[in-house]
C-alpha cells in the first residue's frame, strides 16, 4: 500500500453550474503512480485531465467543483478530506504543478526571483536568508536563466523563459510528484523541445514522479514511460508507451485519436476524424461513454458501461476485450 506514491480510487468529481446543472467531469477514475514514474495523461478538451490534477491539489473552484466519491492517497496519506492547512504544507513541497500558460501563472508585479524564493521560504524554514538566495541562484542556473536576471519582472522574459521560471518554482522544494498541465502547449516547437529536454534532465536529477497532461501524442511518446488515455472523465486505456504506441490492441477511441493526426511519413489525402463530438458531461451516455462516436458500437455498449480488461499491465475499458484482455468474439 505504502509503496505507491499516488493512489486514486473511484474518483468522481462534479461541477455544479449556475443553472444547477451537474457536470460530471471525472467519473470513477482509478490511477496509481510509483516513485519516479513518468505518466502521460492524454485526452481532448473536456476529458477531465485538468480537473483530475486540480482534485489532487484540492484546487477545484470552491462551491462549484467537488469530489463526490473516491479517495486520493498521496505518499501513503489519505488526502481526500485534508484541510486547507494540511494541503498548504503539501503543495510545493510534496506535490507541485506547472500550469499551461506561463503568461498567466506568474505574478506580473513581483520580480521572478521573489516568486521563487517565496516557495523556498515557506517550506524550508530551516534555511537562512542567504541560503535561500543561494538556492534561488542554483535553481535559476538549473533552468538555464542567468541568476542576475532574478530582479526582472515576468514581462521582461519570453514565453519559453517564463515557463522555465514556472518550472523553477515547481521544483524549488524537490517535490515527489510534479503535475505538469500542458506545460509546452503555449510554446513554439523549437522552444517546446528545449523545455521538454530541460524537464527530462531535471526529473532525472531530483527523481520526481511526473504526470504530464497533454493532448499531443508525440510529446508523450518521447517523454513518458506510461500512458493513460482519458475520455469523458474515465481512463479508457492505460499501459506502457510500448503498449500504446507499438501494439495493435487498442480502445476504438485511441485508434481514432491516432487516425486523426496527419501522418508525416505517409502520403495520404484524407484524414480520418472521429465522427461526432465529445460527450456532453452534463448528459453522459448510459453505457460506454464513447459509444455514440464509436464505429464498432454494439447494442451492449449502449446499454452497459464496460469494465477495465487488463492483460500484462495493458488495460482497456471496452466490451471488445473480454476478461483476459483478448478481443471478444462477435
Amino acid at each position: 500500500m505504502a509503496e505507491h506514491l499516488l493512489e486514486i480510487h473511484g474518483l468522481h468529481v462534479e461541477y455544479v453550474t449556475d443553472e444547477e446543472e451537474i457536470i460530471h467531469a471525472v467519473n470513477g477514475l482509478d490511477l496509481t503512480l510509483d516513485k519516479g514514474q513518468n505518466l502521460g495523461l492524454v485526452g481532448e478538451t473536456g476529458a477531465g485531465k485538468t480537473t483530475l490534477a486540480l482534485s489532487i491539489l484540492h484546487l477545484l473552484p470552491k462551491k462549484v467543483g467537488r469530489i463526490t466519491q473516491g479517495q486520493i492517497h498521496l505518499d501513503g496519506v489519505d488526502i481526500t478530506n485534508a484541510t486547507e492547512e494540511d494541503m498548504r504544507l503539501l503543495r510545493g513541497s510534496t506535490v507541485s504543478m506547472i500550469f499551461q500558460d506561463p503568461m498567466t501563472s506568474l505574478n506580473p508585479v513581483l520580480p521572478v526571483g521573489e516568486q521563487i524564493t517565496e516557495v523556498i521560504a515557506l517550506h524550508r524554514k530551516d534555511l537562512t536568508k542567504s541560503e535561500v538566495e543561494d538556492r534561488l541562484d542554483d535553481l535559476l542556473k538549473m533552468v538555464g536563466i542567468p541568476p542576475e536576471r532574478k530582479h526582472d519582472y515576468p514581462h521582461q522574459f519570453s514565453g519559453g523563459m517564463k515557463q522555465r521560471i514556472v518550472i523553477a518554482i515547481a521544483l524549488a522544494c524537490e517535490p515527489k510528484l510534479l503535475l505538469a498541465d500542458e506545460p509546452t502547449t503555449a510554446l513554439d516547437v523549437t522552444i517546446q523541445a528545449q523545455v521538454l529536454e530541460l524537464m527530462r534532465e531535471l526529473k532525472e536529477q531530483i527523481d520526481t514522479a511526473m504526470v504530464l497532461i497533454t493532448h499531443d501524442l508525440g510529446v508523450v511518446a518521447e517523454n513518458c514511460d506510461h500512458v493513460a488515455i482519458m475520455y469523458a472523465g474515465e481512463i479508457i486505456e492505460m499501459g506502457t508507451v510500448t503498449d500504446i504506441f507499438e501494439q495493435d490492441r487498442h480502445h476504438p477511441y485511441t485508434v481514432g485519436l491516432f487516425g486523426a493526426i496527419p501522418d508525416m511519413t505517409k502520403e495520404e489525402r484524407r484524414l480520418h476524424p472521429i465522427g461526432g463530438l465529445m460527450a456532453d458531461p452534463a448528459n453522459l451516455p448510459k453505457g460506454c461513454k464513447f459509444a455514440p462516436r464509436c464505429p464498432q458500437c454494439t447494442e451492449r455498449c449502449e446499454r452497459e458501461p464496460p469494465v477495465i480488461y487488463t492483460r500484462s499491465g495493458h488495460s482497456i475499458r471496452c466490451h471488445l476485450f473480454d476478461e483476459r484482455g483478448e478481443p471478444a468474439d462477435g
Partner: protein
Amino acid sequence: MADTILEVRNLKKYFPTSAGLLHAVDDVSFTLERGTTLGVVGESGCGKSTLGRVVLRLLEATSGQVLFEGQDVMQLGKQQMRMMRRRMQMIFQDPYASINPRMSVSEIIADPLKVNRLCKSRAEMDERVHELMDTVGLSERFVSSYPHELDGGRRQRIGIARSLAVNPEFIVCDEPVSALDVSIQAQILNLMMDLQEQMGLTYIFITHDMSVVKHISNEIMVMYMGKCVEKTSSKELFANPLHPYTVALLDAIPVPNCSRRGKPRRVLSGEVTNPIEPKPGCRFAPRCPYATEACTSGDIPLREVSPSHYVACVLK
C-alpha cells in the same frame, strides 16, 4: 498551363516602434497558381500572419506589390477594393474571437451577403445561408443558435461559411485549426480540402504545425524573422530540407511513436528575438550551429539550388 492567381513581389511591412523599425515582413516574393495551396510556416513572431494580412490589404504594405490576376491590389481605390474583397477572403485562427457573439449563426453568415448586396430578397438570402451551412456541414437546426452554444469545430465552420458567402477565389487561412482538438481538426482539414476541390479555391495556409502544413500544402514557405528562408514543394521540403532552420524545425516535432525515445535530440539553443532594425546577414545566424562569418557579412538572397527549391543560406 500555369494559371497564376497571385503574385507577390518584394513585399515589405515595417512597423514603427519606440525602439526602431520592426521588420515584420522583409522582402518576400512568391507566386501562387490557381487551385493550389501555399503553406506558410514559422514560429510566433516570424511575420506569417502579417504577411497574410498585407496580401489581403488588411494592413497597408510598406512597399512591394501584390498582383491579383495581374492587378496591383495596393493601387486599388476604395470602391475597387470593395469589389476585390469579394474575391479574396480570410479565415481566422480563433473561432471564439472572430465571430460576433451577439449575432445568430444565420445573421453571421448572411452579413457578408448584406454588406455586398448579393441577394435580392429575404427569401434568396435565407436560401443562400442554408446552402452555405450545408456546404460546411452545419446542421440546419443551428440556424438561430448563438456562437456560445456551439463548440470550437462548429464555430470554425461558421467562420468558413462566412468567408465562402461571397464566392471568393482565394482565401488566406490563418491558423484555422490550431485552436481545435485533433479529432475536430481532422474534420475541418478534410472540409477545407473538399471545398478546394469543389470550388477550385486557392489557399494561403498559415500555421506553425508542420504535420498539418505538410498535409494540406502543395508548396511550403518557411519564414524566420520576416524573411523567407526556404521555399519548395511540400514533398521536397520534408524529404530534403536544406536550410538549418527548416532542419531544426522538423527535428523539433515530437513524433507519435517510440522511434525517438532515448535518442538525444539536437535542441536549438536561443530564442527568436524581435526583428527590430535587424543587422544585415542571415537572421538565423545567432542560433545556427553552422554559422560562419560569411553569414553575417551581407544579405543572403533566396537562391534556386535545385529546380523549384529555393534556399537563403550561404552553405547551400
